[in-house]
Each structure stands twice: as C-alpha cells, then as structure tokens.
C-alpha cells in the first residue's frame, strides 16, 4: 500500500523551493488571502517575509497571529479560504499558502524561537472551558493581555479535536503538542481530566473567576434516524477517530467499511480505516463533490489511497439482524437506489454540542450556545468556536477564540473602570 502522505501530494518545501514559491506571490496591495483567513494569520505578511529572506520573521508573524499556526498549516482547507482568494489565480494558479505556512512555522522549531510572552499581570482570573482550538486561542490571547488563565478539560490531554478528532496521518501529534507548548509557555494553567458540569460546576467557576470562556466544541455525533442505526457495527466518525487517536496507530474497525459524509471527518475516517487494515473502504455522500465541504487536496489524496467516493446517495436503512451486513441508499434524483454489503458503517455526518453543563445557559434552536459578540446569556460567561458557530475550521475557532478574548478583556476593563 502506498504511504499516506501528510496533507496532500506535494513534498514539503525546502528553503529553496519555499523561496521560489514566495517569489511567485504578487505581494498584492489589499491581500485578499489575509482578508479571507478566519484566524487572521495574515498570510500576505508572512509570505512577504519569506520573499525577503526573513523566515524567522515569517514564523513570528504566524505565531503572533495564530497560536495554532502549525496545526492550521497542516489541516486548514486553504483551497477554500486564502488560496481561493489569491490574486495569482487570475494569472495561473494560487500560491501554495498552506504549505508556505507549514514551512515558516517549522522554522520556529528549527531555530528554537520564543515568539510570545505574557502581558504584565492584571490580577484578574479567567477560566476557559475546553482545551480545543477556540479555548486555546482565547487562553493564549488572554495571557498575552496579562490575565491569569486556567483551562478545564474533560480529556487527559489538551488539544480537543486536534488531539482526539483528526487522524494522526493528517495532523501529527507532535505538531499539536508543539503548538500547545506555546500556550503552556505563556503560563496558561491546565486542569485536565476535569469535566465542567460534573467534576466542577460552572457556577463555581463563575464565582472563583472574573470571567469564564466556553470553547467546548461539538462532541455529540449526529447519526441519522434510520432503521438499523443501533446495530453493532454502526459508529460515529468522532468516536472512531477518537479511538484511533487514543490507540495511536489506528483501530481496526472491520473489513468492509462504509463511511457516510462529505467533510474532512469522513475522509479522515476513511483513510484511517484503510490504513488500519480494512479491505475495502468507500465514502458515500448525499450531495455532489462540488458541494462537499472537504478540502479538495485531501479528497484527492484519499482517493489516491484507494478509497472510492460515491455521491448524491443518502443512507435510508442499515441492513442486519445481530450486526451490520449492509446498507441501503436512495439517490438524490429520487430514482436511483443501491444496497451495499459491509460490516461497518461510520457516520461522519456532523456533530452537535454537548451543552449539559449548565441549565441556565441559553441555547439556540440548533442546540448551540447562544452568544452575541462572544457574550452568552450568563453575565461574565463568554463562548466561541464550534459550540457557537456550529462546526467550522480550526482557523475559524482560533479567530473566534481570539475575538472572544478581546471581548472578555473589554468586559473586564469596563468592570474595573466602574
């Protein structure tokens, strides 16, 4: 079997090829790439730094703007964000921004740089619930502003979805750990294996901290309500990936696996299952490839691995008596149908919030935390990331976490002024 290559098929940049790529950049005046980065990583600035031989400066730009800059560089669907916006597309093809970001981010490690330092202590304390992208980003930003920050998370290790949700082939744990080490270096406290809601009450946090940030993500799998969805052999994508991440080198799920979904989670599940030794892995998606939210490069490399993708077919029934033996699909056209034999069905069909931590917290119709400019219905409690916007990119969570941190900052400075 071909080796699964991290993030697409092109080899990593060397100093020479990175310079070549950076020299392709038109150095646009209004930099649409930077405008389209939800994390505010400012690719235009770091590409220009590479172009003018300031690779350390490029690494610093990334770290200052995006505490998870290395993770984002590995998993961001750039082709739908910065690279899609790239002016060079009008000339030939966009700059490989994600890959340049990976190159520059690596320079930080290579040169042993310490980019960030905490702000002068303000004497105010903030609790961040969740140790995923949104919370890490908020925590780092708050530390830079001089707050005493403590992260609470139910898991053993920080990173949230980065650690427990994305396959290690696509995002090496060492990259996640390196990014998180920057948060640790800033002096953020971590209380791991501590679930807010059970181990510690949200009310207690509100009492003991000046503000609370909720960045708890979406950890409840959406499994469509179709016959047979309780059969052994049916599982959710996040559970599958989580197990795979925990065991380290993939978990053998079955021999013939059907993955339902069209996002990066579905692709992650498919490649993870194949690498764990499944005989046949097929992705079935209810819409078209064009509509699929998955990163196109990721899609290509998954297909190259040997995963087949069938589109415009939605599951209607899982077949089996004691265990899964197959699955039935109906076409989007209302005419087509298919019955496929398999022993495992993985649903990567979205997640929702597990918002049982406080009854008083107002939720939206979709079961997400209702928040306006980061402020929830509870005074002094802020929220951002997937739990508010419903599952976007790591970059979006980083951006939202950063914004929420500044909301918390103005909330606390206003309170101080009063």
């Amino acid at each position: 079997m071909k080796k699964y290559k991290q993030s697409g098929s092109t080899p990593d940049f060397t100093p020479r090829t990175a310079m070549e790529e950076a020299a392709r950049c038109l150095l646009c005046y209004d930099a649409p790439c930077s405008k389209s980065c939800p994390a505010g990583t400012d690719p235009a600035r770091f590409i220009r730094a590479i172009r003018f031989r300031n690779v350390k400066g490029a690494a610093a730009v990334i770290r200052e703007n995006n505490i998870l800059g290395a993770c984002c560089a590995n998993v961001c669907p750039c082709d739908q964000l910065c690279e899609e916006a790239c002016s060079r597309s009008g000339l030939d093809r966009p700059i490989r921004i994600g890959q340049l970001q990976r190159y520059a981010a690596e320079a930080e490690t290579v040169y042993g740089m310490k980019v960030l330092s905490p702000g002068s202590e303000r004497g105010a304390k903030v609790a961040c619930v969740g140790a995923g992208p949104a919370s890490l980003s908020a925590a780092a930003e708050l530390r830079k502003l001089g707050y005493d920050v403590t992260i609470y998370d139910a898991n053993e290790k920080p990173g949230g979805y980065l650690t427990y949700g994305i396959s290690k082939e696509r995002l090496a744990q060492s990259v996640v750990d390196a990014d998180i080490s920057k948060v640790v270096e800033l002096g953020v406290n971590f209380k791991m294996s501590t679930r807010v809601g059970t181990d510690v009450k949200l009310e207690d946090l509100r009492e003991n901290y000046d503000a609370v940030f909720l960045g708890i993500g979406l950890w409840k799998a959406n499994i469509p309500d179709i016959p047979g969805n309780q059969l052994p052999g049916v599982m959710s994508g996040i559970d599958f990936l989580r197990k795979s991440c925990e065991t380290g080198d993939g978990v053998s799920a079955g021999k013939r696996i059907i993955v339902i979904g069209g996002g990066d989670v579905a692709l992650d599940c498919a490649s993870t299952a194949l690498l764990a030794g499944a005989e046949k892995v097929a992705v079935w998606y209810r819409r078209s490839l064009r509509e699929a939210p998955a990163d196109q490069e990721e899609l290509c490399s998954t297909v190259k691995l040997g995963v087949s993708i069938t589109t415009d077919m939605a599951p209607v029934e899982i077949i089996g008596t004691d265990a899964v033996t197959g699955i039935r699909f109906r076409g989007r056209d209302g005419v087509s149908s298919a019955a496929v034999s398999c022993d495992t069905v993985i649903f990567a069909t979205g997640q929702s919030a597990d918002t049982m931590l406080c009854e008083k917290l107002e939720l939206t119709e979709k079961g997400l935390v209702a928040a306006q400019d980061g402020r929830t219905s509870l005074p002094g409690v802020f929220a951002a990331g997937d739990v508010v916007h419903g599952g976007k990119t790591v970059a979006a969570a980083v951006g939202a976490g950063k914004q929420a941190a500044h909301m918390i900052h103005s909330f606390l400075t206003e309170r101080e002024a009063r």
Partner: protein
Amino acid sequence: MAPKKDLSVEFLGTRCENPFFLSSSPVGADYDMIAKSFRLGWGGVVSKTIGIIVSDECSPRFATTGREGMPWLGLKNLDQISEKPTEYNFEQLFKLKRDFPEKIVVASIMGSNEKEWSQLAKMAEQAGVDFIEGNLSCPQMTVNGCGCDVGSNPEMVRSFTKVITSATKLPFIAKMTPNITDITLPAKAALEGGAAAISAINSIRCITNIDLEYNTALPVVAGKSAISGYSGAAIRPIALRFIQQLRSDPAIGKIPISGIGGIETWHDCVEFLLLGCRNLQVTTAVMQYGYRIVEDMIDGLKYYMQERGFDKLDDFIGLAHSNILSPDKLDRDYYLLPAFDPDKCIGCGRCYISCYDGGHQAISWDEAARRPVLHAERCVGCHLCMNVCPLNDVISPGEVRFKEGRSKHPVPCQHDYD
C-alpha cells in the same frame, strides 16, 4: 524547421559560417570539447587562454547571483588561464583547424612580458589558427603585469599589441577589460599598436556575496576569498553600453568588434549585432546549459530575420547604434500616459503601491472593484506601473500628451512588450 537564412558573416577578412563563437574560458579548453561544440553548430572558438606560465588554480572557483528557482543572473569566477602545457594547447588548436577547416579557430594568448607575447604569437601562427586574441583583461591573475593590469593601462596595451603584431601576420583581436572608466583609451591604444579588432568585454571585478559564517566573499577558499570576474546575464547591459561607447568614438567606430557579455539567447545576439558587433562570444550560458544553446541561437536568429525581412546579417548589423543618443538629445516635449485594461487586470495593486511609494501618486485604488484608477493630471508618464505589473498586457502605452507650450508632433511608441 527554421527558415533557410544565411547566417554567415565576414569578420577580419574571413567568412564565418555564423557569428556564434565560444569565448576564451573553460568551455574551449581542449580538442574534444571544442569539436563537440563545432558539431552542434558553433561557428568558431576562442581558445582558453594559453600562456607560457601554467596557472595554479584554487577551489572552489565560482559563486553565483540570482533568485531561487531562477537561472543564475551572474557568475563570479576565479579561473585563470590554461592549466595545460603551452605546446599541448597549440597542438589541440592545430588538430581542430585540420579537422574542422570551415570553423574559425582563434588562439587566446597571454604573456607576462614582451618576449612571451612574441613567442606565443609565433606559436599560434605555426598552429595554423585564423586569428589571435590577446587576453589583456583577465581580472584575477596571480601574476603582476598580466590581465587587466595590462588592459587598464593604455601604454602597456599599445606596446604589447605592437610586439604581437610585429611577431605575426595573423589578425590580432585585443580583448578589453570593463574595469576602467573610459574603455576607448585602451581600445585606441590597441589600434595604434596594430590590432585589427576589439573584443569586449571581459568579466567585471566583483564581490557577488558575503558569506555570513566566515565574513568573507564567496567562494570561500580556506576561509578567505578575493575580488574576481563577474559574467553572465547580469553584465549584458554593461557590455552593451561599452560596445556603444566604442562604436561612438570616431577613431574606433569602424573597427570590427566582437561582442561578449551575458549572451544567452538569439535575442541577446541580435542586440549585440544591432549595436554593430560582427562577431559574438559566449561562455557563461554554455557553462550553465551546455553547447546545445547554440541551436536556439541559430534557429531564433533565422526566424528573426524572416520576420523582419532580412537576408543577411549585414542587413541589420549596427541598426540600433545611431538611435542611442546622449540623454540631453532626447525628446522631452511629451509624456505618455499608461492605459489600463481592467478586464485583464487581476487586481494585485502593485501599480498603485509603486506609483505612490516610488512615483507620483497618480494612481488610486478602487477597493470595491480591486482595480487601479489613473489620475492623468498627476501622471508624468514614467511607466513604473507598467514595469511592476505582473502581467504584460494590462498596462500599455496610451495617450500622448504634450507639455504646455510644446508643439505637437508624431511620437513613435514601443508596442511589443513581450
């Protein structure tokens, strides 16, 4: 198949099948190399310089300038004259002339005193070569009184040339150094000494880069380095300038000139021919790409002649010479506004940045449309915008406007920007 065109040209009373010669350097070091080049189409060779002394070379010998992923712009070398024995070198030239009688073989020689110059000239004549070129210009000789020590001293040029021209009946080409303020002084001295032609230019004394580890120039030779000759595409503009200056001097203008300096393509060749050169010499591009580059010089020159309706080289040799004036002779009555094509523009805004920061603030930026807007009343027609545009047909010469009080007249403008 390129059109049939006669590329032959008369040089120093001898018909050359084409003007493309290898210049004196490692590319013409021995029989096998030169024979290979002849078979590929080179019309002649100026041999690696032969002296009585045998040079003692250092390692490494080269450094380059340029950008990652791009061909060298310039090459710095520490190479001196031939490392092989004198007799052996002349024997090689003898065999070449015997086996390739239709090709032109030029012996490049360098003496360190009058006796050596005379002896070498006689040996060259005995070897049966067509012409002799005197290396009066190597910028990195380790022996005093050689190379550009001579070439920058008109008195020495005159006396050594006299020695050579009295020792042989073969036409003598004096190779000029660019490491001098007024190149016409040594050129005139050479003519007074009896030289039949001038070749220009030899390499330019340079430091291409400073090594930040050893704090010396490149190449690093045991932790040290030296100033030495620069060649390649980067020096072509300087070579063209020297040739124009030589041709502009009434005492020199009629003398045949062999043009040297950064020639890579047929287009470069045409440039030297248009300034009035009757012969062209190439090394750096051959070191970079091999002898085969002559194939595209031959083809390209033929297509050029077909496009322009020329039958022979003499139809266009020297055509550009009289159109290059001193700056005070230029028409300063008008300015040429740039014309923008918004449909072809890709919205990078580089013209806006450069016009503001390096021009006359005549372009503003339409943020919504992502297009430049020209304010003709501020524009001086410098065309910096056109030069920074990454596309070649978005900005082109537009309206001709005359300065106040100047009379209107036809203004020919450049059209071909490829």
